[in-house]
């Protein structure tokens, strides 16, 4: 069948600048560039280009520009280029349109309509270069009160706190599974988390034993496929996370194609080489809140009650009620993943239409737990759409204890959010397990880039906090008086629990 699809992107090569070095040919894993020995020139196959910019960055003479194909269908608000392309794709394949990364639609981002406060006159701003500025955060359930005794003029603590995990910045690396990405990605994330004093989440594919040494800075995930879950794995982490859902594809399972399952991934995931790894949509032992409680306590038993247990859900319509149930089921941490959260592969229709924005879910969960008087019994980690330190600060002011970032971390390592993670051919060596391609990601360089990102965001958070006259991150948590909305309806302001700017 002849394809009616036209190239989305056009490779524009300045032939005067091109030195025929063939770097682009080598770098492009999609074979969009090729060298013709007959005339000694480099050509492009536009239809293969995904606009990942690998060739643009690596062309030594800046000869390449990637442009969106300017040849467009008739302008139409309803029948957009994207809508027409998707229908044609399906007509030619009969399949579900698959995509990668998070929802790319413009209508969900509340961060951009929330603005932060700063001190003027009545309250001095604090200069983080001169004064201490504390970001240290403890994740885990907190008691309602402490019991103290005075013995020999000395105050003695009687209450034993539930297990806590400490992070030196409220930014954690969210779940990125081994298999969807390579060992080098995991190594870079784990090393950066350990060096900076934060946490890296393994995702659902287990943890390669070579990274066990960073266990104190790792959240080990237990998902519906139970890949790589065994006693050593559970006990090596600082915390355990039960994955119920993911913001990019709430209610949907996962599928790691067999060709990505090489010997190391096979060993770590505990499945035969070359087999497809299916994660069922639900956890097949969790069909209710009481089942969740059983799994939470099974994991706590397995680890002797030494680690907080997190439960991750996609932000959906009744997140607030679900979250309340999760706390009562024994979760020490709630991870909320908003509709803009990323993924290696998801049906596009789900990615773009299922779930709700993290801002609204976070605001309603935090308020609900306070209304029920149980907010202290759980920490909230918000993820799915955090693009900058400002987003992180706003999330904390809305009520989060910390934020999860994954897309931002991948971007720090080289990702350009081209949304083709599902091909397994990521030219940046990230969303691939191909031994040759994944070598492109040098764990030393990637770890350094991640460290820099954590440092830069942490500094920016300190600057914003100092501006608000706050020198401890906990004084920002849930402090919605430091937020104001612009361009929001009364209902949106009410759900977010913030005032209109100027009020």
């Amino acid at each position, binding site marked *: 069948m002849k394809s009616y699809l036209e190239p989305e992107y056009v490779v524009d090569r300045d032939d005067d600048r091109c030195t025929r070095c063939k770097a682009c040919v080598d770098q492009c894993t999609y074979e969009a560039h090729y060298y013709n020995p007959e005339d000694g020139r480099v050509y492009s196959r536009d239809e293969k280009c995904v606009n990942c910019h690998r060739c643009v960055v690596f062309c030594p003479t800046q000869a390449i520009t990637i442009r969106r194909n300017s040849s467009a269908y008739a302008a139409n608000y309803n029948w957009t280029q994207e809508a027409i392309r998707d229908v044609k794709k399906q007509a030619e394949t009969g399949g579900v349109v698959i995509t990668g990364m998070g929802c790319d639609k413009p209508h969900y981002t509340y961060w951009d309509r929330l603005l932060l406060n700063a001190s003027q006159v009545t309250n001095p701003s604090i200069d983080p270069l001169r004064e201490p500025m504390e970001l240290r955060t403890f994740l885990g359930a907190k008691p309602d*009160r402490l019991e103290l005794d005075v013995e020999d003029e000395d105050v003695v603590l009687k209450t034993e706190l539930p297990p806590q995990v400490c992070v030196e910045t409220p930014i954690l690396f969210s779940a990125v599974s081994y298999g969807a990405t390579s060992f080098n990605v995991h190594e870079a994330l784990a090393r950066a988390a350990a060096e900076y004093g934060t946490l890296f989440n393994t995702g659902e594919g287990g943890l390669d034993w070579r990274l066990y040494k960073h266990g104190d800075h790792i959240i080990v995930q237990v998902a519906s496929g139970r890949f790589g879950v065994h006693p050593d794995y559970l006990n090596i982490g600082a915390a355990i996370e039960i994955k119920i859902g993911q913001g990019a594809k709430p209610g949907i399972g996962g599928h790691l194609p067999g060709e990505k399952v090489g010997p190391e991934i096979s060993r770590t995931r505990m499945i035969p080489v070359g087999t497809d790894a299916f994660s069922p949509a639900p956890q097949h032992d969790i069909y209710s809140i009481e089942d969740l409680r059983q799994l939470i306590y099974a994991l706590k038993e397995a680890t002797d009650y030494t680690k907080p247990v997190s439960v991750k859900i996609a932000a959906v319509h009744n997140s607030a009620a679900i979250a309340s149930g999760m706390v009562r089921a024994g979760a020490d941490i709630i991870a909320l993943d908003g509709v803009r959260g990323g993924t290696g592969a998801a049906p596009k229709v789900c990615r773009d239409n299922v779930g709700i924005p993290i801002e609204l879910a976070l605001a309603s969960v935090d308020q609900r737990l306070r209304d029920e008087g149980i907010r202290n019994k759980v920490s909230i980690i918000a993820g799915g759409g955090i693009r900058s330190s400002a987003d992180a600060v706003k999330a904390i002011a809305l009520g989060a204890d910390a934020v999860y970032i994954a897309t931002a971390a991948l971007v720090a390592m080289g990702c350009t959010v081209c949304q083709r993670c599902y091909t397994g051919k990521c030219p940046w060596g990230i969303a691939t397990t191909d031994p040759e391609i994944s070598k492109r990601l040098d764990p030393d360089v990637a770890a350094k880039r991640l460290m820099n990102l954590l440092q830069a965001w942490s500094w920016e958070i300190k600057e914003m906090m100092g501006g608000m*006259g706050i020198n401890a991150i906990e004084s*920002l948590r849930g402090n919605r008086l430091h937020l104001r909305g612009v361009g929001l309806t009364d209902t949106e302001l009410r759900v977010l629990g913030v005032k209109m700017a100027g009020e």
Partner: protein
Amino acid sequence: MSWTKTNNRYNEDKIFEACSLFGMMNLKGERFSSKDPVRAIANMHDRGNGLGGGFAIYGLYPDYKEYYALHVMYMDADAKRRTESLLKENFDIHVDEEIPTEEANVRNPPILRRYFVEPRKRRLEGQHPDDYIRENVMRINTQTGKAFVFSSGKDMGVFKGVGFPEDIAQYFCLEEYRGYMWICHGRFPTNTPGWWGGAHPFNILDWTVVHNGEISSYGTNRRCLEMYGYRCTMQTDTEVLAYAFDLLIRRHSLPIEVVTQVLAPPFWTEVDEEPPRRRHLLTALRQTYSSLLMNGPFTIIVAHRGEMIGLTDRIKLRPLSAGVKGNFLYLSSEEAPIHLVAPNPDRTWRPCGGKPVVGRVEDQRVKELLVSGMSR
């Protein structure tokens, strides 16, 4: 002497960012008159702007000390009628009287009444009387929006309103009263309207707070206290301090020294250097009570029966001086008023940020605490 006629050479519209605090207690519990406290707070006239002044006096009602003394302000007669029917329903009222006042330079005074009450036995149902009072105060303060219980302790009372503190003292005839501890406040309202309920001190049961500063963690503190049943109705951030003290000391039974470590905790860099047991304690405190950390500039003087505490935020963005002369302990925003009312004091000092000064009536530990307050 007319205190309000103080010459302001910067003209009346010059804005000073300040409030004035003054606390004075007799460490032997002997009662004294309003003369020194009022002179001292008037000496810091320029730290206020005439939009709020107030006093808390302990040892005030020895004849009625077994009853809760409710001081209530009503913005209109309807609120008074509705609130009094609620009071009659829930309390045995032993005295119901107008709070005595005289002509003074104050603005729009509300209806002011005081009641000496005890909870109706059959309504208590095993509840601690303090909890019963707290619940009823919260209820009255949220019910009409026009009735406020601004003092609810025993053998103590708060007098406050819109005016300079010296005018408020005159208005409430404070020269008629005596107490062993006086807490005074002159207000420079910035972020809330200057209304009678918003003046300091803030009180709930036995606890009183005066405050200089702006609490930038207010949103966090308020939402935390709401989880414990407190409702912030006074449109000012100082209220959260009073409720935090009530929660931590009365309900959670934490010693005052520990409470100051919750409100103004040491920095993590300091905690990390402590020996293991103390580090463990300080860490657990901060983990559990992080939402009650008071961030932003503040100096507070907190009082309850027999005890007066001075505390600043942990980087001391607001001033606090302390002094001792004979049996008197003085806490003040500025040092000058201490010298005014206690010439040649035994000693004066400036407490460090986040380190409390605690004075206790008839307690051998007073001096030790004073010494540690000085040495840090």
